[in-house]
């Protein structure tokens, strides 16, 4: 997030797009409710009529994969009415001319046609957002899990820059991170193209510093593989072994039949997790990791806050904290590691990572620190880009609308989107073991609009078969006005009815994120 969670409650406008906030980020939703009570306007754009839409001033349901059209439409309205923050644009940004050209070539009517939202609603959204003093954007996987994921985010950044809503309190562009430590995992370079703190592996100037810290020889400066590239690498025979930590690709990756086949084929598979996941069941070796309560370390949350986690109980049986397992493995591979504790690892992180430079265990008592925190005296950074963007000037991108990779047709006439329900977390390996949570949703379901249910002659609770070009699953019908006609929704928590057998592995060309949020399916009654 560019800004902090606490700041949300003082925003004048909160624009939620592609985030089922109350269901997936309830404590962020708390701040939205508080802001609303203080008089903030709330705008919600989501293909489903989600819970938080109940308190929205404007709530719209865009067609799947049409976010760029919606955002460009809003920006066209802003420019046409001269509601932009020209001072901010002039002083803090570049690329405005080209961006303007792209948006001027677009029309609100076209946006309405593509998104299925009325021109009046698009205009109202633009007006509320642009005229608010502090407008905050909250987004989540509904924005990113598209073949145009990067375009979607760029369009949101354009909207924020256009109205001067970056670099100030209670505004910003705020991706809500899902796992407690997904921010931390990315910060630590758990990505194929960066060292810690987003320092590029292709930047050879950094290699000296890194090889000194790790007393190692030369690093390759090429970018590694993304997960989809690893899977295709297995098929092509260029990837022979895979080490999976805390991930369950058999359930969580798109086109899961394909993923399972690849993992069955691979020469050697190691899985490190706290439970025997469906992916771990395919492994040659399973390494038991420690849960959050069984280890020391830090988590970095969605607002870039680094916080201590402290061991409360010993890991059961042979389980160990991840860092110990990695250390032992590394030593066996011939690169001996001798860390005594996570604290010692944090000292190294601070030494080689500018944004973590001032973070130490001694300073992490209490509420923790928000990066960037470059030195010991630095208080941390509640919001980014205050006087200057990280790259100097904020860069506008001309972003054109591109439709989703797969479209409905006569054979697969319904749009499918996927997501979560409130009682389960991701592939359910943890939450489906909790009786309280299982009591809410014990099995999978498909949300369908009353109109589609009537047309397909479906009744509440009926078992149906849902198929895409890639696979087929059985699922129960849940008829709900939350969906509009033509679109169905299925959560991805259930391995026995795994919606990712249906999803499209088509990827965003830059971020390589798959298009979980759009594909075409057909629904058939069971004979």
């Amino acid at each position, binding site marked *: 997030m560019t800004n902090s969670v606490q700041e949300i409650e003082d925003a004048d406008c909160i624009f939620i797009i592609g985030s089922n906030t*109350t269901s997936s980020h*309830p404590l962020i939703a708390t701040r939205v409710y508080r802001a609303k009570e203080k008089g903030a306007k709330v705008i919600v754009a989501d293909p489903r009529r989600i*819970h938080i839409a*109940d*308190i929205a001033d404007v709530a719209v349901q865009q067609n799947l994969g049409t976010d760029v059209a919606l955002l460009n439409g809003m920006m066209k309205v802003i420019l046409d009415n001269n509601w932009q923050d020209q001072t901010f644009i002039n002083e803090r940004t570049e690329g405005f001319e080209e961006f303007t050209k792209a948006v001027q070539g677009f029309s609100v009517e076209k946006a309405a046609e593509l998104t299925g939202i009325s021109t009046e609603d698009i205009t109202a959204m633009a007006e509320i957002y642009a005229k608010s003093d502090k407008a905050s954007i909250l987004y989540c996987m509904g924005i990113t899990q598209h073949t145009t994921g990067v375009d979607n985010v760029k369009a949101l950044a354009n909207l924020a820059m256009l109205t001067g809503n970056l670099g100030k309190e209670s505004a910003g562009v705020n991706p809500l991170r899902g796992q407690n430590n997904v921010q931390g995992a990315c910060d630590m370079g758990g990505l194929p193209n960066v060292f810690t703190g987003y320092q590029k592996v292709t930047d050879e100037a950094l290699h000296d510093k890194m090889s000194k810290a790790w007393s190692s020889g030369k690093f390759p400066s090429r970018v590694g593989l993304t997960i989809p590239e690893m899977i295709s690498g297995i098929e092509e025979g260029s990837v022979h072994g895979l080490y999976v930590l805390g991930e369950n690709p058999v359930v969580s990756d798109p086109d899961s039949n394909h993923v399972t086949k690849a993992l069955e084929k691979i020469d050697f598979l190691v899985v490190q997790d706290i439970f025997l996941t469906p992916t771990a069941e395919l492994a040659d070796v399973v390494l038991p990791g420690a849960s959050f309560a069984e280890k020391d370390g830090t988590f970095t949350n969605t607002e870039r806050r680094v916080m201590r986690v402290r061991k409360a109980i010993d890991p059961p049986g042979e389980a160990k904290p991840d860092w110990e397992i990695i250390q032992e493995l590394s030593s066996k591979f011939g690169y001996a590691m001798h860390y005594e504790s996570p604290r010692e690892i944090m000292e190294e992180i601070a030494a080689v990572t500018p944004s973590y430079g001032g973070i130490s265990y001694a300073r992490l*008592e209490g509420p923790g620190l928000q990066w960037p925190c470059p030195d010991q005296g630095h208080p941390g950074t509640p919001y980014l880009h205050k006087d200057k963007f990280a790259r100097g000037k904020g860069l506008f991108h001309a972003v054109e609308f591109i439709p989703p990779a797969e479209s409905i047709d006569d054979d697969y006439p319904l749009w499918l989107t996927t997501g979560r329900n409130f009682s389960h977390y991701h592939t359910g390996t943890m939450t489906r073991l909790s009786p309280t949570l299982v009591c809410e949703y014990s099995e999978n379901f498909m949300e369908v609009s009353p109109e589609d249910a009537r047309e397909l002659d479906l009744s509440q609770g009926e078992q149906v078969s849902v198929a895409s070009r890639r696979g087929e699953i059985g699922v129960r019908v849940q008829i709900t006005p939350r969906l509009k006609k033509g679109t169905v929704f299925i959560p991805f928590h259930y391995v026995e009815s795994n919606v990712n057998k249906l999803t499209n592995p088509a990827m965003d060309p830059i971020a390589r994120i798959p298009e979980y949020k759009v594909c075409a399916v057909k629904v058939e009654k069971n004979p």
Partner: protein
Amino acid sequence: MIETVKEQVRKLLDSGQIQGFLGLLEKNGHISPHLFTDPEELDRLNLGERDKPGDARYPLTKYLIKIARAHPDKKFGILVRGCDERALKTLYNYNQLNPGQVVPVGIACPEELARECECRQPYPEECVAGEKSEGCASVSVDRLDELELSERFDYWTEQYAKCIKCYGCRDVCPVCFCNECTLASEDLVQTKTFPTETPLFHLVRAAHMAGRCIDCGLCEQACPVGIPLRTLYKKIYNIMDEELDYQTGYSEEKSPLNAI
């Protein structure tokens, strides 16, 4: 005030009158519940004050149920404010705790906190420390009672609609001790719905709070969407008081509703 409390607890531990003291501990910049067994640890005792009195709170009496059951032959001291004492009384009435195992160490809440809580009796009967301040009337209830019925109905409907069914109100509640919870019974409250069934979920809980709720306000503090639950249950207290002459948390008997 804290020194007096520490002194009292130290005496109880040293003399062997109690084998442990359930209170709050300041550690690593956080305040958390802690069972003190070693008087040395008392240096870090905290009365639940992060920024101001009573802003760091936990349902200590609820934790004590588990601890006391695990060690039936031992006695435990516990830090109590007015509301905690009402919780203890209720838990004794419902046989969840054995008074013979419990030694309360009472502190009175300052006036500011009492007013914020609209607390009827912001102190336990016996106080080791703190000045007893006046009880306060439930202004929040009066304010809503003044609304027209339809306005009041809309107000509560809007509040209930925010619920995300996290069960935080139940889980933090010191007097929610049922083995089977009605809120999780599919015959009474629908599962597989989100948002939760309005108003059934909250009214079922409210009905169960009659003769139970001791007005500690932890539910409202725990509620992530800010439903004014304390106000709702204060109203329930008033009804029990006016209609059945039962003062929840002060009476020495189970509520008359249990006789039905």
